[in-house]
């Protein structure tokens, strides 16, 4: 799609000129903490927070500067240096889209940094934790700020690495190590798609830069564009845990809770959405095969995630399921073209707030309950950790789309646009909203209401201020942000220079059919949850559920599927290959040697030691010689 506004090479100095500082600060922090190592244990976490805040400040300033420019000026490319001569340059693209992400990443990121000071206070490796967090922030910023796919890919893998390191932060737990590896490998499947997509771009256009690509994309043949789109979608699926590459996200909860909040809820997992929106040129026109694919993947995942969310007793896994589902909404939105982009990004931002809010809340709960994650061992906690309770409730209301809270606006936006574009997907999204209502309410009731079901040694208490403050800030965001962004299309207009905009701006109706339907379903879900978990007694051990329940508990058999489709055959293939290499190829080589040796061993027996035998051989030789000569002579 022709991006409406040309990218202008940034000339004037100002903050945008030094916007690379955004990346540099946390990178520097990570480097210092990793290189100096234990020496920094005492103040390491503070440095981490400082660096993250610093880059937040830069982001804000750049944002302000960008606001100062006219809409036509709001795509500033900052050239850093020549990366691969003739192929790709290192450069940043500061435009509404990227800066919005930068704000989210650094803002929420900083809050989570602060929160972690408290959360990780007892961990001997807190310094290492912060170095990884900083590394993540830097990589994530490179991902969203880069002005070409190579730069984006570096960031893309950088966040993958950070996620790998943080999921496996408690690597002495085998489960954590495995989860980390799984996350990385599954992501690599997506990267494969992204890579091949880039091959095609290069061979077709000879560039990786967003600017040139969006110009040349129009001139490419339709099949080629479709191919690129689908391959990019594969990449997005990997990063954003969309079907069919969703399986890693639930295991990723092995990581410390702040990680789940920052990486696996607020920012990294949404990179897929960013990729799709940023690559709008290859998902154009809306309704094209690849765009439709995006929407379908989104719809499918939002249902799958929701269903999984219903069956989890592990509070973090429950939240992870809902994350999947919410990102499904964003994907759905992103699949609808410019009309949906604004809502997708909007939901992405608000989700960043309320999901982070709830994860941190969950973390705060675990903090109080000796890292217990099983909701069946919770209950009645509202009295013991009020702040956590309130903030969590706000997040909850936001996510189920309680009117006038953030989630309400953004999610509704997506649903309505979806219904306009594609009835089926739209109504599926509505259903998904209903399920969301159920499983989130279930979580609330099991955690904060009902009877105590604690372990003996549990002494729940409110978390320290350093943890509660971020909760409060986030919950405030969860309340107001959505309305601010969506009403009067602020976000859409703001993003327009970057991602374009539909011809006529949508107007938000508070009483649209899908909207009301959504509210109704959510209410139903919530009530059902209350009857099942609020009013009724929650069994301390998981009861054998119906087929559907088991189906959900097993993550829709995603792992089983991967295992039987890829892991097992892969292991067999490996064994066969190794055997073939040792016995087959090497066997031939050694066999050859042995063969020559054997021949030699047999031949030397001819040397009998009897002089007369030798004489005979001479005579025979003479005969042969004569015969040969006669033969050759007669030829």
């Amino acid at each position, binding site marked *: 799609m022709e991006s409406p506004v040309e990218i202008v090479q940034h000339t004037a100095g100002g903050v945008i000129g030094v916007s690379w500082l955004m990346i540099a600060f946390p990178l520097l922090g990570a480097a210092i903490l*990793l290189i100096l*190592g234990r020496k920094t244990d005492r103040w390491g976490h503070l440095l981490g927070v400082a660096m993250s805040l610093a880059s937040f400040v830069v982001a804000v300033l750049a944002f302000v500067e960008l606001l100062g420019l006219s809409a036509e000026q709001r795509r500033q490319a900052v050239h850093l*240096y*020549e*990366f*691969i*001569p*003739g*192929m790709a340059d*290192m450069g940043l693209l500061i435009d509404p889209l990227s800066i919005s992400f930068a704000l989210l990443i650094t803002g929420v990121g900083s809050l989570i940094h602060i929160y972690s000071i408290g959360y990780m206070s007892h961990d001997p490796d807190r310094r290492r934790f912060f170095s990884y967090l900083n590394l993540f922030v830097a990589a994530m910023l490179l991902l969203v700020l880069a002005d070409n796919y*190579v730069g984006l*890919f*570096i960031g*893309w*893998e*950088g966040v993958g*690495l950070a996620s*790998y390191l943080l999921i*496996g932060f408690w*690597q*002495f737990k*085998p489960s*954590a*190590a*495995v989860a*980390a*590896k799984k996350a*990385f*490998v599954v992501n*690599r*499947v997506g*990267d*494969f798609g992204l*890579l*091949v997509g*880039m*091959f*095609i771009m*290069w*061979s077709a256009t*000879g560039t990786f830069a967003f600017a040139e690509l969006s110009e040349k994309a129009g001139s490419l043949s339709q099949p080629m564009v479709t191919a690129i789109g689908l391959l990019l979608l594969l990449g997005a699926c990997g990063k954003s845990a969309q079907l069919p590459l969703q399986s890693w996200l639930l295991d990723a909860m092995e990581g410390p809770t702040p990680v789940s909040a920052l990486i696996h809820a607020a920012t990294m997992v949404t990179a897929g959405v960013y990729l799709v929106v940023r690559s709008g040129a290859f998902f154009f026109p809306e309704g094209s095969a690849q765009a439709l694919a995006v929407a379908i993947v989104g719809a499918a995942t939002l249902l799958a995630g929701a269903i999984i969310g219903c069956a989890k007793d592990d509070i973090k896994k429950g939240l992870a399921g809902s994350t999947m589902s919410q990102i499904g909404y964003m994907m759905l939105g992103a699949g609808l073209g410019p009309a949906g982009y604004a809502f997708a990004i909007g939901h992405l931002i608000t989700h960043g707030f309320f999901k982070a809010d709830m994860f941190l809340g969950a973390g705060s709960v675990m903090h109080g309950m000796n890292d217990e994650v099983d909701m069946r061992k919770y209950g009645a906690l509202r009295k013991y950790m009020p702040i956590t309770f309130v903030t969590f409730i706000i997040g909850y209301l936001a996510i189920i789309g309680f009117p006038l809270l953030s989630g309400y606006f953004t999610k509704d936006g997506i649903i309505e646009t979806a219904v306009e574009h594609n009835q089926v997907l739209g109504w599926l999204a509505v259903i998904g909203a209903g399920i969301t209502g159920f499983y989130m309410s279930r979580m609330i009731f099991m955690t904060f209401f009902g009877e105590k079901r604690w372990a003996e040694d549990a002494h729940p208490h409110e978390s320290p201020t350093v943890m509660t403050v971020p909760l409060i800030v986030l919950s405030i965001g969860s309340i107001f942000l959505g309305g601010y962004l969506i009403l009067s299309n602020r976000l859409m207009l703001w993003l327009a220079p970057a991602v374009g905009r539909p011809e006529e701006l949508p107007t938000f109706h508070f009483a649209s059919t899908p909207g009301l339907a959504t509210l109704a379903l959510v209410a139903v879900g919530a009530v059902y949850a209350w009857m099942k978990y609020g009013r009724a007694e929650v069994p301390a051990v998981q009861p054998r559920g119906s087929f559907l329940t088991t189906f959900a508990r097993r993550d829709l058999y995603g792992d089983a599927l991967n295992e039987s489709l890829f892991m097992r055959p*892969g292991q067999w*293939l*490996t*064994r066969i*290959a*190794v055997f073939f*290499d040792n016995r087959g*190829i*090497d066997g031939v*080589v050694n066999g050859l040697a042995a063969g020559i040796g054997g021949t030699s061993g047999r031949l030397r027996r001819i040397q009998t030691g009897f002089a007369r035998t030798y004489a005979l051989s001479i005579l025979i030789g003479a005969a042969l010689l004569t015969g040969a000569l006669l033969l050759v002579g007669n030829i």
Partner: protein
Amino acid sequence: MSSLWLPILLAVPVLGAVVVALLPKGADQVAKQVTLAVSLVVLALTLVMAFQFPSAKGDRFKFAAVYDWIPSFGVHFGVGVDGIALVLVVLSAVLVPIVVLASWHDADGVRTADGTLITPKRSVKTYFSLLLVLEAMMIGVFAATDIFLFYVFFEAMLIPMYFMIGSYGGAQRSYAAVKFLLYSLFGGLLMLVAVIGLYVVAGKSTFMFPELVGAIQDPATQKWLFAGFFIAFAIKAPLWPVHTWLPDAAAQAPAGAAVLLVGVLDKVGTFGMLRFCLELFPDAAKAFTMPIVVLAVISIIYGAIVAIGQSDMKRLIAYTSISHFGFIVMGVFAMSQVAQSGATLYMVNHGFATGALFLAAGFLIARRGSPHIADYGGAQKVAPLLAGFFLVAGLAGLSLPGLSSFVSEFMVMTGTYASKAHGSGALTVAAVVSALAVILAAVYILWMVQRVLNGPTAEPVKAFKDLNVREIVVLAPLVALIIGFGFFPKPLLDVINPAVNQTLVNVKVDNPAIAEKGAGQ
């Protein structure tokens, strides 16, 4: 007017080797220090030379020096470097001092953390003088502009490495050493026939490479001679299915020698393909491209899969290298500027990455006394620094973006995909299939990391000490290079690109779209 740079560069390590060899018995410490000093001098000289390279005169081969050696065979002592050769010479010069430091105690008899002796005490000065001889030959083989001289170094190189593996290696060392020597010797002898054939057929009564470019016109002859050269290089590289000597050799060799073996010696194979197979026999090269690319892709995937199944760290790393060499070969024969520059860059980066990985693994093995992955677990807890270096090296091995090997691998794959040299879509298929290795690489590296570094700390591992200063000094520069070139490969590429363009001109590939693209605007 011939420059003295390279002759000096060759002479210094040789003299050093003689000095070390002549040291009195028991002067082990001195021997080590002398060796280190000499290798550092060589490094310094090389770097100075490298920085003068852009300004140096000479059309293609700079710092060229040609002296008559065996007039009646038309053999010259001809040396000189173009961009490709230069970066490889630099690679060798960088790795040697590191290896010297790394194998500081290898000949003293290695003891594990719990004090059990793995390898007995052996002659220290022999080891280090061999190392210096090897360095001279590595520099010579890349710098030779006379094909006969190249062949001499190519073969003579085997001997020091043979002794380093054979008398300083692990339990199976003599089997591995003999296998390595005979395999390479066989290839080399076939190449000898081709070399002679080239001389005879060309009838130029000289072995100087520049004069022999384009000397062979008849396609049939080209094919035969090409085969002679290629088989030798394929064994050296090593390419599937003649790769089986590498895992044995690399697994048995002391870590330092393994680094030079995989990091530099094997590059001679891919370097030879790029320099000789392509430029001397362009038509044959084009004719054989498809089969060779197929072999390369097989190496990539096959090597990766077999690597996953290895239970021995060093063997695993060796198989990953086979996979990586597949990439290099594919890049060389993709006949596109991007791919070939990528391949050349890959030769360098792979040297650093695999070098670091082998050394880190070597340090682990020196502590535990066993290369078997199963004998480890939870090393991160007790030796975080070592674990960190191991991890970074491993990530370079799976060519994580931001680390040097990514740039080269990416260039190779993109260049191959986009190569118009063969028109056919076959190359694009090859590129896509090879990209699958991205996934496999993650599996083999991370699974090893998981089994070695993660999980609960195994009993014998608890005794591990973290890296000492010497070991840090060994690994730090490599990791620095890996990260540095990961974000800023331009210096290398600026040197490589012109040389590769020259190659493509001699191969007469008209691939403008890519060629002028990659050449850098």
